[in-house]
């Protein structure tokens, strides 16, 4: 996972503009009520930037964990038992999948997984499709689905 220019730009915009709104009016001697309103907006924008930064770091940790499972995990297969979608994120379907997970040493069991997928992938998630998976050796519920 990496921040792209849009992400960096959003964090920079809300962070810098928020700080400017909060500080500049006070330094410039703007009357109290106006300075207070601008400072409130500024603080909210700085909080938005902080929230975005927190989310980006969380996504980064998630991606690093998935990379670890991919490198260290047990390879198995997931057979699609059922797939449907009732929502979209950024024009991509949010798929709800019911999978038959088969991993050497862990047997076979049914699991559920939600994944945001491009349309071409979502349209192929049909009963019987077999996909590779990598499973955390220490936690069989923790797996990466290769789609």
């Amino acid at each position, binding site marked *: 996972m990496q921040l792209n220019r*849009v*992400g960096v730009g959003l964090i920079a915009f809300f962070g810098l503009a928020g700080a400017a709104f909060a500080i500049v009016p006070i330094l410039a001697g703007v009357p109290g009520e106006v300075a207070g309103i601008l400072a409130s907006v500024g603080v909210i924008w700085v909080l938005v930037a902080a929230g975005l930064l927190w989310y*980006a770091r969380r996504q980064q940790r998630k991606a690093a964990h998935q*990379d670890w499972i991919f490198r260290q995990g047990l390879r198995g*297969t997931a057979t699609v038992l059922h797939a449907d979608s009732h929502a979209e994120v950024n024009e991509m379907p949010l798929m709800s999948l019911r999978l038959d997970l088969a991993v050497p040493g862990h047997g076979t069991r049914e699991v559920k997984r939600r994944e945001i997928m491009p349309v071409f992938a979502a*349209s*192929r998630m049909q009963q019987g499709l*077999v996909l590779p998976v990598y499973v955390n050796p220490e936690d069989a519920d923790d797996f990466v689905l290769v789609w």
Partner: protein
Amino acid sequence: MSAVDSAYVELAADRGLGQLPGFDPGQLTPLLVEAKGAGLQPALRGALGEGVDGVVGQLAYQRNRKFRFQVALTEVPAATAFAPRVFCIRRGRSTRDDEFYGFETRHSKLWTESTALNERYEVATSPFQDPMWLRQLFSPSLVDWLGTKPPADFSFELAYGALLGSVESDDPGAAGLAALCEATAHVATRIREECEE
């Protein structure tokens, strides 16, 4: 009859392909998703190359401007278990399939191990694609072939067993269409061989 229609008539006669009244392949690959169900028109069905059957046709759609691709579609179902998706796209071709929105995990990663391949193509796969299988698929002979033999604007997308070869030419002529068919069939054969190994 337009030049493109004439090229398809000539191709059908040369290679014994059957005319289709129009063909909707569905949203099988990123390029076909971009076309939003535009379908192939004209379209021919038959042997793309030795032992490889499929459909060849023109994909035209509007997105900001008019896009025209000549495409050849075939199937390699066994590939799904090894590589759900492999996109080998000519450098410089504009696609939207790898966009992400600032904070999301990427849904694909670039395969950059082969310098020769990367001079001409961008190869993208699942972030969790088995690298050994890709190394075997993109053997030196296939890399050499991809760098020198296919039409200059050739790209291919492999997604869940559907293989779509494409060129960007508006009017490649019957010879260009034949080259597209041969190139797609060659890639399909190579993928099939690797799956069987």
